[in-house]
């Protein structure tokens, strides 16, 4: 499978968007890592270096947006959301300003940098903000299209992506629709809902389950908020059970969003694959994914437990 880093395609999309004079990109001294440097190369005047000062970055973003600019503010997810959550709340989300907080280095696959740099709570805290749209594209192609889509959308957005090269599973050039999930594989026995790089694990898990005679439906939930409840409910009306998978804490993320939806529409057996309320640590990404229960095998195991629970009823 072809692999690519999401941030690389984010940079490509920004370079394309540089032709729009209203777009301004802010950096907190990580532009080479987040690839906003691609925009700087294309539109130097509209690339503003803020320095290592994320709180100020969000306020400056608000002021620029209040002047009619479409603003992208990027850094690592821990700093883009946690360091300046209240600035995003007051200055951007409350007045519904047109700022895109786009973060790289999400999740445990950040690897060697360890827990200080592994954002596992960002979906939870951004999802709680009124007016905020939250995206978590599955791969590089989808990241490119999502970047174009949020630039066209007028309002605050948060988009997360990983650091490493992930397999490309979505086709090139498919227009991204905010709030619309994609059914990647149809099935009848269980619904696997993934976001970010865990979508690949859901696809792989579906293949393994199929060999065991279990028909799994796979959904790519690349918009966490607003959640595509219609697609979720349509799927579970067939399958009656759900596994969610995310490179994020099981508290407040995709699993929580889906659980909220299911609880309000007739509860059913569910399992959440994600980090079990803990911080990460340093290590090789694949070792970490294994240790923290974020592999294809973990999705398969959760699915099997659910099928058994469903059968017992």
């Amino acid at each position, binding site marked *: 499978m072809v692999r690519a880093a999401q941030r690389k395609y984010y940079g490509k999309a920004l370079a394309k968007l540089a032709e729009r004079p209203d777009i301004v990109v802010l950096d907190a001294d990580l532009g080479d890592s987040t690839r906003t440097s691609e925009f700087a190369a294309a539109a130097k005047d509209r690339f503003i270096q803020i320095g290592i000062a994320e709180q100020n970055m969000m306020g400056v973003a608000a002021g620029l947006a*209040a002047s009619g600019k479409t603003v992208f503010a990027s850094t690592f997810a821990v700093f883009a959301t946690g360091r300046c959550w209240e600035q995003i709340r007051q200055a951007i989300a409350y007045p519904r300003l047109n700022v895109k907080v786009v973060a790289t280095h999400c999740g445990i696959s950040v690897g060697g940098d360890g827990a200080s740099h592994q954002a596992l709570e960002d979906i939870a805290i951004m999802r709680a903000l009124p007016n905020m749209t939250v995206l978590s594209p599955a791969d590089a192609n989808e990241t490119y299209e999502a970047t174009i889509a949020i630039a066209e959308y007028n309002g605050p957005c948060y988009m997360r992506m990983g650091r490493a090269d992930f397999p490309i599973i979505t086709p090139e050039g498919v227009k991204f629709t905010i709030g619309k999930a994609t059914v990647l594989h149809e099935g009848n026995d269980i619904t696997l809902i993934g976001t970010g790089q865990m979508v690949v694990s859901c696809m792989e898990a579906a293949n393994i389950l199929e060999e065991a005679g279990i028909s799994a439906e796979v959904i790519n939930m690349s918009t966490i908020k607003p959640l595509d409840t219609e697609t979720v409910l349509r799927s579970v009306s067939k399958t009656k059970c759900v596994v969610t998978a995310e490179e994020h804490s099981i508290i407040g993320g995709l699993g929580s969003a889906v659980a909220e939806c299911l609880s309000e529409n007739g509860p059913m057996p569910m399992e959440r694959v994600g980090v079990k309320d803990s911080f990460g640590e340093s290590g090789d990404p694949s070792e970490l994914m294994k240790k923290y229960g974020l592999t294809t095998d973990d999705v398969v195991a959760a699915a099997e437990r659910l099928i058994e629970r469903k059968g017992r009823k």
Partner: protein
Amino acid sequence: MTEMVHMGTANGLDAKELKRMADKIRMHVIEMTFEAGSGHPGGSLSAAELFSVLYFKVLRHDPEDPEWPGRDKFVLSKGHVAPALYAALAESGYFPVEELLTLRKLGSRLQGHPARGKLPGIEVSTGSLGQGLSMACGLSLAAKLDKKDTRVYCLMGDGELQSGQNWEAMMLASHYKLNNLTIFVDRNRLQIMGKTEDTLSIEPLEAKLKAFGFRTMTIDGHNVKQIIKACERTSSSPTAVIMNTVKGKGVSFMENNPDFHGRSCKPDERDRALKEIKERSSW
């Protein structure tokens, strides 16, 4: 000239009228916060002259056309003194003066702290201290990018300078030579828990602002002529004006009384306050 048409009819009061307008703002503040049963009259009174000078002399704005692209921009970083800002906006003609008494009430456009999109004339949402200057820098940067001569003014509390984000913003303002930006520090020396210098000292303030790349000056924040002069710009750097003020200024029993930072007048206090101001300014 189109710009002249848009200067706003309220602009251009003389010093005496500006002083009187400051007192009008004070009366509104007393009545609004009394009616609301809460709010921050102390800091609103200390900044009354600044609001008068900005909205009736210095700012290029048009209350009939709040979104006029040629307007100057004002950011109230110390958002808790929204009553004084609202009074200045209403007296300028942005909305009916009668609406001032809806402050803090359900359904009102006059939120407890300024909220962009709710009320005409509010550029950004403030109230969480320490954030306004960053937003003002964003407004200044946008004007620079668009090659517009917009001027941006930001009123800050002295207590809020304890917040680190301000200093991040100051570094940015001087790095990008935002000479279209002027900040006013309402140096009334009091915050909720008492004196700023007992709470967490911010002195030597002017030296700090200078070290962060600002052209600085210290003025009497109740002297309208000094405020007008401070707004004249001749610098390549951003400007910081320390306004020495008295919290609760203009009402004898409220002056320098930290009690009135965050509480409104009782009925008898309101009557005494209004009487005192009225007698002085013949409103």
